């Protein structure tokens, strides 16, 4: 007699799993392939030009030769300004939404709605707005400062959204637990919630960094076109992405330099993102050791 299995029908259609695995692998391969294609195209043209002098030199002949040194510095300074504003603003807003107001309340809905809408404002509008608001109304002129602040407005939604979902994904009993220990809300936020949500926040920051460093339209009108070594946040300084745009569409016979600059930009993103991740991990580890 056959072993007594009450249900003879085969369980768990294996083909479905196979199909899903196949579709997933195809999709993963496709996105990797497209990315590799894009980077390969950049590298083929741009890699031979990259050298130490390229990284540190000044722009010559409208960008057809020379380097991108001042632009690297300007780009980093713009990023510093941007992050200095957007991190407190974004996490603060997300904290308020997740810890201080009821989910679905009118206030929360208005703020999230406003933030979501901000995400869909065309970047060129940010540029025009930043030029008038930061540049003229707040008298920052064409400067790294006004470029950074404009970018901050632009990536704010990314940070708020990711931080918010990181906070919402925290175990629900973390809050009563900290309240049960008699911690004040501030202590509980600073010592418990933020560290726990930090990996999620860092994801948001890395996304924001990528978006900020790749932005062109918002920066042409704010941080500007100057190729001088910046000496302060009040100087105008051309960002790498603006330079790539200018080379691609404005300076004939500079395709190779545009590719080199794009490669440097990618490398920069890699470095900055890794630094952000490493910094957060280091910080978390130190907390774990001391507490």
């Amino acid at each position: 007699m056959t072993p007594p299995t009450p249900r003879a029908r085969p369980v768990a259609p294996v083909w479905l799993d196979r199909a899903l695995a196949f579709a997933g692998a195809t999709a993963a391969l496709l996105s990797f392939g497209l990315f590799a294609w894009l980077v390969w195209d950049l590298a083929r043209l741009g890699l031979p030009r990259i050298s130490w002098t390229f990284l540190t030199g000044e722009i010559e002949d409208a960008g057809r030769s020379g380097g991108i040194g001042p632009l690297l510095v300007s780009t980093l300074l713009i990023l510093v300004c941007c992050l200095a504003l957007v991190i407190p603003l974004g996490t603060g807003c997300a904290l308020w939404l997740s810890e201080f107001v009821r989910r679905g309340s009118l206030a929360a809905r208005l703020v999230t709605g406003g933030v979501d809408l901000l995400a869909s404002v065309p970047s060129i509008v940010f540029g025009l707005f930043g030029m008038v608001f930061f540049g003229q109304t707040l008298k920052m002129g064409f400067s790294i400062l006004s470029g950074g602040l404009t970018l901050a407005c632009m990536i704010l939604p990314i940070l708020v959204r990711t931080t918010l979902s990181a906070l919402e994904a925290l175990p629900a009993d973390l809050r009563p637990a900290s309240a049960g220990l008699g911690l004040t809300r501030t202590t509980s936020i600073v010592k418990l919630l933020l560290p726990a949500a930090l990996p999620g926040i860092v994801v948001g920051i890395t996304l924001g960094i990528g978006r900020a460093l790749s932005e062109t339209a918002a920066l042409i009108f704010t941080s500007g076109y100057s190729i001088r070594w910046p000496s302060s946040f009040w100087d105008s300084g051309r960002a790498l992405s603006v330079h790539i745009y200018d080379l691609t569409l404005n300076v004939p016979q500079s395709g190779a330099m545009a590719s080199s600059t794009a490669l440097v930009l990618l490398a920069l993103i890699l470095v900055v993102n890794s630094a952000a991740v490493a910094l957060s991990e280091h910080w978390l580890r130190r907390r774990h050791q001391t507490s």
Partner: protein
Amino acid sequence: MNSTGLSRENDAETPSSGGHRTVAASLSVSGLSVHYRDFTAVGGIDLEIPEGEITALVGPSGCGKSSFLHSLNRLTDLIPGCRVAGSIRLSDGTEVTHPKTDVLSLRRRVGIVFQRPNPFPQSIRRNFEIPLKEHGWRKRDIPDRMETVLREVGLWNEISDRLHKSAIALSGGQQQRLCIARALALEPEVILFDEPCSALDPIASGVVEDLIHSLRGRLTVVIVTHNLAQARRIADRAAVFWVRDGIGTIVEHGPAERVFTAPSNPDAASYLSGARG
């Protein structure tokens, strides 16, 4: 319990009423050990789990009861780096630990209910549809099957009017009974309980305990519990886990009556008398 061959044909056609058509299976464990990377959590386990009886696994925290329990239906596969050695044999000869064993049908035959109720955060109905469909139930048979098991766990009258509502809106005790019903719906032969009452209030806990007790005879039940009184009340057989040389193992097992009243192992004796652990 031996009319299985007949009832099998009938299952798909008339899945309603009764519920006494499932087969219980016995489990025979020998030389079993569970390793997490370099660390051995459980070792040297030999245990007979007879069909249709309730076997309680007791012992202090961290002695490997849960690891052992999860190895019985290969849930240990989910843990990266976890390795199980030894033999677990179902009464039909299926070797649980064999790599070629169909894990999914194994888990249907050896169901599990966890410490924390874990219904899917979807409608109550979906909680049954998802696993039943996976195991080949026809769509039109599902409502009857769901009603049968919900009646068995005594939930039908409480929730039959909100089957389309989210399962996580139920109380903790209701959620746990839903999870038991969900496991029963698959007509398992063995059902494992991993401290099923420890996350519940005393009243809900009592209801669940009675429910488990009612499964006796129809199904083979293995229950991990910290509640010795509970184990005494419901178990036919008991096994006491203890950590020896850093490795969890069974130091005493046999009929519950004997294990609880006259343990031969000193560690087991002191644990059961409440002195240690």
